[in-house]
């Protein structure tokens, strides 16, 4: 049943280019898809470990810059007269490096998260993103600062026997994004259903207790942060090679907010949540655009957000799942108010 829905969904998405010819909508779908991948990675942290990263765009942006710089080449001076000169490499290498470097940054932030949780983690991630943005803005020699990196090449994939395929068109990019999204989905799904996933949930709900049964906080949280950041980096790389220009604006806070909106409205901690939330809030602006004034579009956007949360406060997917599933367990529909929850909060 589960896998049936999954396969149907994939087929439906795969068939879109067959009937949708409008390049603008295709463009919207591709950028939405890229942000959905970012949102899925955010969900891994927020939904499964309970740590809200409000600087998630940092990993996305780092991925974008790494990938762009790898494929464009650069020449920077370092202190003490050292220079690094890098000649362009194929974008696909950039894609891989984007994952690796973003993952490494995730490792750093994850190490920090060993010390700080909750609100403190939130501010550390915001700070991290701001610092990265300021570096991108001010290290002009490497990143061109506000002048932006332009003419980023499209991704080229080497196909055995068929030579190289450069993904220039919308159609090709669409399938690329779809493929990465599916892989990401499967990866996250396997991960959260493994014992790592249970360890993450345990930490989220009651850390003291989780630790007392032998769950390693640092390892688990860092692992989640690394994987999450790596995926966000991959999304950033797709973004750079699709939009083909990248500047420090990519680190804008509103981009993180967009991902957070996608995750929470869709339902954090649910695998399909970011996809559903992402489709809604990725495409909503497209539909609002022709029908109202620009300021009103934003007001409507905020309004839709609020209404969804009022009607389905746990997020769309979990709330609907509860509504349509037979009450398998009698206690499921209520939020426990019992003692242990408060204890958990106190310990957090």
């Amino acid at each position: 049943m589960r896998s049936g829905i999954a396969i149907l969904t994939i087929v439906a998405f795969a068939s879109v280019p067959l009937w949708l010819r409008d390049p603008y909508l295709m463009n919207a779908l591709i950028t939405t898809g890229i942000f959905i991948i970012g949102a899925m990675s955010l969900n891994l942290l927020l939904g499964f470990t309970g740590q809200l990263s409000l600087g998630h765009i940092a990993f996305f942006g780092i991925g974008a810059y790494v990938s762009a710089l790898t494929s464009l080449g650069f020449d920077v001076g370092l202190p003490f007269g050292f220079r690094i000169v890098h000649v362009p490499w194929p974008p696909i290498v950039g894609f891989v490096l984007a994952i690796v470097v973003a993952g490494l940054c995730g490792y750093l932030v994850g190490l920090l998260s060993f010390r700080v949780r909750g609100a403190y983690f939130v501010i550390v991630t915001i700070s991290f993103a701001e610092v990265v943005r300021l570096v991108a803005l001010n290290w002009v020699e490497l990143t061109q600062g506000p002048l932006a990196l332009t003419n980023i090449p499209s991704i080229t994939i080497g196909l055995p026997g068929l030579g190289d395929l450069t993904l220039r068109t919308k159609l090709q990019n669409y399938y690329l994004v779809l493929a990465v999204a599916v892989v990401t989905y499967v990866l996250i799904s396997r991960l959260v259903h493994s014992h790592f996933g249970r360890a993450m949930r345990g930490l989220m709900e009651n850390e003291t207790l989780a630790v007392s049964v032998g769950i390693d906080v640092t390892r688990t949280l860092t692992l989640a942060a690394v994987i999450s950041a790596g995926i966000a980096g991959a999304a950033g790389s797709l973004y750079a090679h699709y939009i083909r220009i990248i500047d420090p604006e990519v680190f804008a806070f509103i981009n993180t907010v967009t991902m957070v909106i996608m995750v929470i409205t869709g339902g954090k901690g649910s695998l399909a949540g970011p996809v559903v939330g992402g489709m809604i809030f990725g495409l909503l602006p497209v539909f609002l655009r022709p029908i109202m004034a620009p300021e009103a579009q934003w007001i409507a956007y905020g309004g839709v957000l609020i209404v969804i949360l009022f009607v389905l406060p746990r997020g769309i997917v979990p709330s609907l799942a509860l509504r349509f599933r037979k009450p398998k367990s009698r206690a499921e529909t209520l939020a426990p108010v019992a003692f242990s929850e408060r204890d958990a909060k106190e310990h957090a």
Partner: protein
Amino acid sequence: MTAIALKVEKVAVHFGGLVALSDMNFTVGEGEIVSLIGPNGAGKTTAFNVVTGFLDPTHGAVSYRGTALNGLKPHQIADLGLIRTFQRTSVFPNDTVYDNLLVGLHRRGRVSLLEAILGLPRARSSHRRLRERASELVEWVGLERRAHDLAGSLSYGEQRLVGVALALAAEPSMLLLDEPVSGMNASETHTFVQLVRNIRDRGVTILLVEHDMPMVMSVSDRIVVLNYGRIIAEGTPNVIRNDPAVIEAYLGQGATRA
């Protein structure tokens, strides 16, 4: 005398100016049931926190089966088989009882990340074994009826049972129980005593903190009494029961009835 499992040497804990424990020394032998009792605020839970790594002692050292525990993190200590329960109820409130136990079985279920992601057979069979074990544990604490309810929605006493089951799921070689029967009535306590004996018979060492004197007296091999962070008495239940200092500081006159 059996081999020493846990050794607490000269442990002191200060919170700012407050001395919660001072110069505490005691040992627990393999397979023993030792109780730690004392007035409220005597430092019993603090001692648990030191042993299980949640608190670094101001002075002193703890070792388990010859391994020094100083500087180890709580999860590393848990990996040595030293598992505790909490005085306050402690469960994973938004998971079902059954899933709580699956989390508790963490130490058992380890497979490599790659195996888990690729869904290799070893990961699958390990998963199946965990499920069986979780069902066993649910049955064992008598919560079958509640297995698929969220742990946070159970009553106080039921949550305490889940807490104990969780600790057992972690496969302790030594179990530290902090007031396990508080919130249970005499009959439930009676059943629980059987449980504790049962656990010990499987070779698990037990350190118990409890204010229920009948229970402590009936189950302990040895009792250590703390007052104001110091050990004031140590011995078999019979010795302790009649120790005037203990009666004065802790048991009160009613204890003679127990």
